[in-house]
């Protein structure tokens, strides 16, 4: 099984992965050890920087008894001009499953077409980031007890933010109402908004953050990504436009969750960290059980009903 976009999973498959992840929690926390992936090798192919995604895939594999190969662009054959196709032929022979992050959009699908082993898309340019979406859904289910029919506000860089693209697609399939808050130059691409609407999702677009959050179940903040801007001046115009502070939360729902794929710059003030609304660090941890579940699924390994 490849995971390139959320379209590769039905709602039922996504839910069953979340259930698997739930069962894997004791292993993810290090409270239990079960080498389900002993003898398997994961290739971590990061052609673009990553902290959480790369490390959480690595720890997921290691906690399940598997091994990890790490390729980073610096010093690799990629710098010498090797095509992605050729790199993938090599990896096909060295690993049982590969995770790829690449600055170019479509790279994960291209890699999947080039090889036999399962491919997980860990971000392709401004395209998709479905493994992040699964951990986001897992986190939302932890906080709200469900993922159906929620009122979700997505904030920040919705144009280049692949996390926002993948998550909004998934949430629309689960009947969410979405409020998209971004400055004009960073609005969600129109083809994505069209897709969301055609799947029956109620969408509102706004430039104002605070009025949008009062009735929200989830507020999903994203970083304005300097590296995606062709021009520094354009970045400066919108940098720091949305920041949430503890005093902004006076009239929000008591179980409202604030999430962020991290790293944050100044979107969420540290004064929020100690409140019950702060979910972003739990969210980062949740990358481990969900990626464990994905690795097992892609390698055809069943997860026992009870793990103690």
């Amino acid at each position: 099984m490849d995971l390139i976009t959320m379209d590769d999973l039905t709602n039922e498959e996504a839910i069953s992965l979340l259930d698997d992840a739930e069962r894997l929690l004791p292993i993810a926390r290090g409270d239990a050890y079960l080498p389900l992936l002993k003898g398997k090798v994961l290739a971590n192919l990061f052609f673009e920087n990553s902290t959480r995604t790369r490390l959480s895939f690595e720890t997921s594999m290691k906690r399940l008894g598997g091994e990890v190969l790490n390729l980073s662009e610096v010093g690799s054959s990629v710098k010498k001009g090797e095509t992605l196709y050729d790199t993938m032929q090599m990896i096909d022979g060295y690993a049982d499953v590969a995770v790829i992050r690449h600055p170019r959009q479509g790279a994960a699908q291209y890699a999947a077409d080039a090889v036999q082993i399962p491919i997980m898309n860990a971000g392709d340019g401004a395209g998709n980031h479905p493994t992040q979406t699964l951990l986001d859904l897992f986190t939302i289910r932890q906080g709200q007890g469900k993922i159906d029919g929620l009122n979700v506000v997505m904030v920040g860089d919705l144009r280049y933010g692949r996390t926002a693209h993948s998550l909004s697609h998934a949430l629309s399939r689960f009947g969410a109402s979405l409020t998209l808050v971004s400055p004009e130059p960073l609005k969600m691409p129109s083809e994505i908004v069209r897709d969301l609407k055609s799947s029956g999702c109620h969408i509102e677009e706004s430039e104002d953050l605070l009025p949008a959050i009062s009735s929200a179940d989830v507020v999903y903040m994203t970083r304005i990504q300097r590296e995606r801007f062709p021009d520094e001046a354009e970045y400066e115009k919108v940098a720091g436009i949305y920041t949430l502070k503890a005093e902004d939360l006076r009239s929000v729902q008591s179980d409202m969750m604030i999430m962020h794929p991290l790293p944050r710059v100044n979107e969420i003030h540290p004064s929020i960290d100690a409140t019950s609304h702060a979910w972003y660090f739990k969210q980062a941890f949740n990358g481990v059980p969900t990626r464990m579940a994905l690795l097992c699924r892609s390698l055809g390994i069943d997860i026992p009903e009870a793990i103690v």
Partner: protein
Amino acid sequence: MSEMRRVSAICNGTVIDHIPSGSAVQVMRMLHIDGSHSNPISLVMNVPSSKVGSKDVLKIEDRELSQEELDRLALIAPSASIAIIRNYGVAEKRQIELGSELVNIARCSFFNCITQNPNEPLPHRLQVVSQDPLEIRCAYCGRAQSVGEIIESLI
């Protein structure tokens, strides 16, 4: 035929009739007809047509276009009628069909698509997501492509 024939009948080859008026040059581009071959080509543009008001017609002598070549035209001339001519008679009539995927017909026009690296060897694939309204997306990066962009990016 009440209208005077503007180009004489051909003995053998392919006639593409009912091309949308003014599109014949794009049709030639899509078929890689660029004058580098020696077979005669006749092109008439903007002639009156009882069926569609005004049309272009292309006659290609001594070359029978394959179904695969003709299907390329689905993007700009989906309602064109095609006749394969042998010995001055219509030997076969063909329909143009827009398949579910355009393989190696045009590049994705998105500047940051993985297929923009000319050394990458896998085929260029554009998927026909919907025929009406026409919606075509790159099979790799998922970006929507307009017909104009596809014509600009023909391989």
